[in-house]
């Protein structure tokens, strides 16, 4: 990565954090809720990564990445018979 691309990425992250107040409250709460939700559906192995970034056109990208050993099946995820 070129030096100025690193700078640009850093500034973009900074501005996104400023807007969402991500520094403390927001990110911790969001991460906890997402972890909770994903663990209902998957047998997650390891950490769930949550990242929010701003792209060129001013929209927010939300990336959730995790690895799972198994998909949990429970009542509501069964296919409905019509």
């Amino acid at each position, binding site marked *: 990565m070129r*030096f100025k691309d690193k700078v640009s990425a*850093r500034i973009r992250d900074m*501005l996104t954090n400023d807007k969402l107040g991500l520094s403390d409250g927001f990110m911790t709460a969001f991460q906890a809720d997402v972890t909770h939700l994903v663990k209902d559906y998957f047998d997650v192995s390891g950490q769930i990564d949550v990242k929010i970034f701003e792209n060129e056109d001013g929209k927010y990208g939300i990336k959730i990445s995790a690895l799972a050993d198994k998909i949990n099946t429970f009542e509501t995820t069964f296919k409905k018979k019509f």
Partner: protein
Amino acid sequence: MRKIVITSGKGGVGKTTITANLGRKLSADGYKVVLVDGDVGLNNLDVAMGIENRVVYDISDVLAGRCRPFQALALDVETSARILPSSANSADISAQAFRGVVDSLAETFDFVLIDCPAGIEHGFHRAVSSADEAIVVTTPSASAIRDADKVLRLLSTYPLKDVALVVNRTRADLIARGEMLSAKETANILHATLIGIIPDDDYITVFQQLGKTADFAPSKRAFATLSRNVAENTRDVEVPRRRWWRR
């Protein structure tokens, strides 16, 4: 007619310099221009314009009825632009009163340029709420961009007709080496409309000490482009080239 505030959030990024140079260029091009010092606490527009010894009245005298608005205007040393100075006495002027003065000047002048203080407190509100348009100044540095972003968000809560961006102190050599963000990249990050790119130019600081603008300064062309964009509502920015020689 047009009331434009020059603001930035962060101090020292070039608001006063850009107000002074833009004002002089618009005036040299034949427009009737008045520059209002809205940076009441740290007023230095008078110094940038070389008129600090000519100031008789300031905006607080106008509001106290000690003189009429036009009597308080000082004449620029280089062009026919006028300056309405401020002083420490102007600190508690209300936004309403400030706006009244700006409006009365706007009846006679083509451009009222308001030099805004740093920060986002009362002085900021006073300057911004008296304008119809805003020019946000930033440098390509992380901290200036961060403050510009805050100011842009804040400005979106005011009923302004137009908000545009000027990137100041760009260095073609650093940009070419990928060590500084270009003005366009800076504007992209801020999702702002770029109307001027002013190169870092030692002559600005050197001549500012005399309240003057160097005729041969490398930034001269950049101010001409900015001035044209402001006057004609265009957005044709020109990337300053590295100069290999000096006259």
